[in-house]
């Protein structure tokens, strides 16, 4: 449980190099919202989490039952699996500020960039 402290409180410094971000993005096929979300997420990660992140894309049209198992009602849904705690961000991630707040990256926004 080292993550929450570092990421959650945003201890002032940039994320520790060792820290890895496990992100999963649920989409449905190639719908415009899904495509936009993938693009928006990749752009944000490159900018704020370069070299520390891993994105998994899950297409619920291929396995609809996963929606019930993973409790995903809406798409796109981004789930931050690591660092804990798990965070869910719903939407096409077009609002970058909201995305960063949701990922609890907001405090770091101004510092390194």
């Amino acid at each position, binding site marked *: 449980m080292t993550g929450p402290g570092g990421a959650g409180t945003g201890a002032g410094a940039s994320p520790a190099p060792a820290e890895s971000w496990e992100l999963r993005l649920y989409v*449905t096929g190639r719908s415009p*919202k899904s495509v936009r979300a993938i693009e928006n997420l990749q752009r944000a990660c490159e900018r704020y989490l370069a070299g520390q992140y891993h994105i998994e894309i899950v297409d619920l049209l291929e396995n609809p039952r996963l929606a019930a198992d993973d409790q995903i*009602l809406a798409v796109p849904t981004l789930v931050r699996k690591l660092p804990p705690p798990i965070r869910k961000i*719903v*939407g096409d991630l077009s609002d*970058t500020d909201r995305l960063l707040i949701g990922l609890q990256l907001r405090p770091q926004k101004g510092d390194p960039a």
Partner: protein
Amino acid sequence: MASGHGGTDLTSVLAEADGGGALPKAPTGIRGFDEITGGGLPRGRSTLVTGGTGSGKTLLGLQFLVAGAREYGEPGVLVTFEESADKLSANVASLGFDLDGLQRDGLLVVHAFQVDPAEIFESGEFDFEPLFALLDDTIERIGAKRVVLDTIELLFGAFPNQAIVRAELSRLFRWLEERAVTAIVTGERGDNALTRHGIEEYVSDCVIVLDHRMHEEISTRRLRVVKYRGSAHGTNEYPFLISAHGFVVLPITSVALDYGAPEERVSTGVDRLDHMLAGGLFRGSTVLVSGTAGTGKSTLGAHLIDSACARGERTLLVLFEESPDQVIRNMRSVGLDLRHWAEAGLLRMWAARPTAFGLETHLAILAGMIEEFGPAVAVLDGIASLTHGPSGPEVASMLARQLDLLKASGITTMVTTLAHEDETSTVGISSLVDTWLLLRNVESDGERNRLLTVLKSRGTAHSNQAREFVLTDHGAELIDVYVGPAGVLTGSARLVQEAQERGAQQRQGEELMHRRRELRRGIVEAEARLAVLQDDLAAERAELEQIEAREQRQAADAEAARSALAAQRWADPASHGEGGRR
């Protein structure tokens, strides 16, 4: 951002006015509900069921699915946003709904979503496509014909962007209709609207409102079909209950006309009372026995039970005021042995202190007993204790439902209630009963006696006479009362009056005999006098005749003498001589 939903109002109004032919229906399997809707929910369409927390929305939906799966060969899908699947299964297992079993058999699928607003963070546009895909997949997989979404309005709380939620739900309802599944969507009752978020706007075919009121610790559940496009439906508020067997709607008004009317008579167990009622009670009818304290109401009930058990019928005795042991002891004192009927399994006694739980539960338990035990005769003893407290209308409605249930089950029922001197205070159920017996105490000369009258008895020529009701050590008996110029006499007054009457009669008899003797003697005397007078009369007549005869002889003699003298003088016939001379 699906297209708008405006404009549906006008078309729905027109369609409603049109009426249309036989709309296909999907039976819910809920007793009473299919009756008031003429067969169930509109097939292939969505129905909105709305109500407050704990009003029974979820149960209605579940029962619809379970009945579909079990009885109508229509598998179903439940999507719940309220409870976890495990919790739901456990909750409804007590109602005999085996959700796990149905799921194993591929007749039901439950998808549970926990929507926790705190967990969801929004950034940009989204849609509910996963829900559509999941439903689509499940419907295909098990061939589902029924879908329940419970309670979909919770999504408004989970996602801050209300406009998107609204649009997506609107799209979902249209999608369900396209899939031609019969759906129930539940909503939370709003303050001034049918649902908190106005989703009734999207479900225009059928809207049902459930209501759960608590008043004076008495819970009452009601169901109303607010809208049912293209179908006739009962518009009343129908009481319903959640019994051990699920949801039961009691459509009092519609069922009331369907009762059978058996001609068979059932003895009350009191011979002379049967006689007063022209042979007893009609089977399946309802008798109200009202009376003041200690008038023998319970005894009448015990008689009915005793005679039914003696015929081998099952009986149910619901006690509101006493314990079974008390009743058994009390009835033994009037020669009725209820214990051996109980031991023989023909009598079931249920002591139900009404304050122990709500009337709702009471009704539910009664319904359960009727279903499980199947009594032919039921006695509800002492219902007046239900009416304590200011919740009169609820109690009356509740009793009406109980009586209705009993009547609908064809059970001959006797209800006893404490009534005060004022006859009309009998909690407004008198119109529901077929026969009304009134027991009264009549106090005079330092004693109280019981009087029984038949106030009404539908379909029966009944005696209008009051009878004295006497409790003996071998049961209740009815005795003719003394009705005379002094009024109605009972008890020892009647005995005294009867003795007095006997004495008076005797005296009168003696007097008459005396008078008769006197008269006879008078007649004999008069006859004797008459005979003497007649003798006198005869004697006087005879004397008169003699005198007249003598007179005639004397006249004739005188004539003869005169003729002879004339012949001597002129030798002419007497007549000529005389005539010529003049």
